């Protein structure tokens, strides 16, 4: 092995006073970091293979392990940071595009953390969600301009198809192939129990999961993997994926190694072949083309299912959204630049796109300004990390949110950002049967349900504090938000006042 020019990124610290040499760390590390050395009668490590997924730390029965960033330092340089230097060494070694996974980790501003939520005092009293009804149910889809009623009180207006969510939270698209079957099962079962939806991503739908169809959003992406009549008919809604926050403007590439028997069947491609999603849909070059696809899908499903169009948050997102809202789509999903992925070129992930907070505010405003806000529901994705982020998103104008990274966390993911390696020690982003087994859907689905329930409680608590008792009354209610440490320009885009104003 030639010299790498760069040191191991992490260092495994083992407290030998605690280590009982049970070798569980060794058996559970797909990166083969840990090994037992009989001569030393000790556990040793290959630090350079560690991705800091924390699996060994979590399972070590005596808490003997810690992983920290290798404290070794290159000579201090504020321009050529150690990271940039290492990336250049790496590329000089491989000649390849840098690949990475999960969301953009760089220290760009997180606007959620610069927005504060209001609470009632004296007038418009706050509401105790434990004592009074609090509505977090939402409906997604076109809203009629006007509703008329029959004499008996029933609705006379013909309503467009919609999705009914008991919480304003859905699990966003993660394809079978990029994540494991057990992960998909966990999401499907959790969505079903929660009364919300999960999203197949672009990898088709495994036949075992058709039973969860009523809580499934099926995706149609540029690769058209696994798209056929039954698939479209099974889902509760169909999502056309135009773009993804983690890698706007580029397609996808699932390596052939991950296309094993079941994935191949589900995606309807031969085993072992790379699954390539083209950057554009080759039949869409205009809003009119998009409209054609939307209506093709509606036609195919007899206008019974809402169509979602998902785009990445990019510079002119508001204008794009306006076009989509006029194209016949029922729901627009916008994915911010922090959104996760199973694999993306690092440069794209870290430098392309815009924050979801800004995109959402400008889209909501634009649609209102154009009087077409009721044509579509707006769902945001791309790093809604907590219930408070969710409340802020809704107050900025979102109808609902998509979460994926928090769902992965619930299933055990530690954001080691190594999904593209296919050796996920948590059994999530892998197709290796021995690793997939590590994710027990019976456990994982409950954790997902717990997570969403917990967020729902917190959302109700925050709404109650504002004296608001339904998502309907919170949506677009930007008066409930104030910025902190933001410039006038940023406040203007977000459409909120500064704290103290």
């Amino acid at each position, binding site marked *: 092995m030639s010299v790498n020019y760069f040191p191991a990124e992490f260092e495994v610290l083992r407290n030998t006073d605690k280590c009982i040499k049970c070798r569980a760390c060794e058996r559970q590390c797909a990166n083969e970091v840990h090994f037992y050395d009989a001569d030393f009668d000790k556990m040793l490590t290959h630090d350079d293979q560690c991705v800091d997924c924390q699996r060994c730390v979590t399972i070590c029965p005596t808490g003997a392990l810690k992983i920290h960033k290798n404290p070794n330092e290159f000579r201090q340089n504020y321009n050529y940071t150690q990271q940039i230097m290492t990336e250049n060494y790496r590329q000089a070694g491989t000649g390849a595009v840098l690949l990475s996974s999960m969301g953009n980790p760089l220290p760009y501003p997180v606007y959620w953390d610069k927005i504060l939520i209001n609470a009632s005092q004296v007038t418009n009293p706050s509401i105790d969600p434990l004592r009074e009804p609090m509505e977090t149910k939402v409906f997604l889809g076109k809203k009629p301009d006007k509703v008329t009623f029959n004499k008996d009180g029933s609705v006379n207006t013909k309503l467009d198809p919609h999705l009914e969510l008991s919480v304003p939270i859905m699990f966003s698209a993660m394809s079978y192939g990029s994540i494991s079957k057990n992960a998909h099962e966990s999401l499907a079962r959790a969505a079903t129990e929660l009364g919300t939806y999960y999203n197949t991503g672009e990898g088709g739908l495994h036949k075992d999961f058709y039973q969860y169809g009523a809580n499934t959003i099926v995706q149609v992406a540029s690769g058209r993997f696994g798209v056929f009549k039954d698939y479209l008919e099974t889902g509760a809604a169909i999502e056309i994926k135009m773009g993804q926050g983690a890698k706007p403007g580029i397609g996808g590439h699932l390596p052939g190694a991950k296309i094993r028997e079941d994935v191949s069947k589900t995606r309807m491609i031969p085993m072992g072949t790379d699954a390539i999603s083209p950057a554009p849909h080759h039949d869409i070059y205009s809003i009119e083309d998009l409209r054609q696809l939307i209506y093709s899908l509606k036609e195919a499903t007899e206008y019974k299912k809402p169509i979602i169009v998902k785009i990445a948050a990019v510079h002119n997102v508001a204008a794009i959204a306006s076009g989509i809202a006029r194209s016949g789509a029922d729901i627009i999903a916008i994915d911010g630049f922090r959104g996760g992925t199973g694999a993306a070129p690092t440069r794209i992930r870290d430098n392309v796109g815009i924050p979801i907070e800004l995109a959402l505010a400008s889209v909501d405003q634009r649609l209102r300004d154009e009087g077409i806000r009721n044509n579509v529901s707006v769902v945001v994705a791309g790093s809604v990390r907590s219930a408070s982020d969710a409340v802020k998103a809704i107050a900025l104008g979102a109808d609902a949110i998509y979460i994926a990274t928090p769902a992965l966390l619930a299933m055990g993911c530690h954001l080691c950002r190594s999904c593209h390696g296919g050796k996920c020690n948590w059994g999530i982003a892998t197709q290796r049967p021995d690793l997939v087994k*590590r994710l*027990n859907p019976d456990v994982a689905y409950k954790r997902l349900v717990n997570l969403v329930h917990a967020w729902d409680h917190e959302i109700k608590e925050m709404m109650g504090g504002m004296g608001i008792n339904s998502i309907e009354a919170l949506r677009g209610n930007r008066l409930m938000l104030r910025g902190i440490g933001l410039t006038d320009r940023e406040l203007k885009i977000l459409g909120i006042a500064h704290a103290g104003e």
Partner: protein
Amino acid sequence: MKRVYVNEDRCLGCHLCEFYCSFANSGADDMAKAFKLDMAATPRIKVEEGGDINFAVSCRHCSDPSCVNNCITGALSVHDGVIEIDESRCVGCYTCVLSCPYGCIVIDKKNGGKTITKCELCTRNSQGEPACVKGCLNSAIVFEERGED
């Protein structure tokens, strides 16, 4: 009666159940101490590994147990459905090892094989629920009533 069952679709072959068992029956108050001070007991659960398939096996606590029926000294007996070993009466003849169709009677290497040992569902230590069940990473080992009795 409640028994320990292992779901082989979930078992990862990590062997932690064996270690938790050793600790649970060591009498030590700390797991590292149990192993560092050589207090750890011979594990009464055993993981079988076979590539994609792994599973742990421990005493099934049969309702008509051949180990008890065949025991030449009366050291094995049944109490509230749990098959227990009275080490003071065991002479290490291993007739029970010969008899158990699941291979779940364990020769107690800790005492040089002078007696056997076996799973007693953690009823004789301070664990409460069996330690293998509590410690299982993937909830592959469960302790439940399945009502075959």
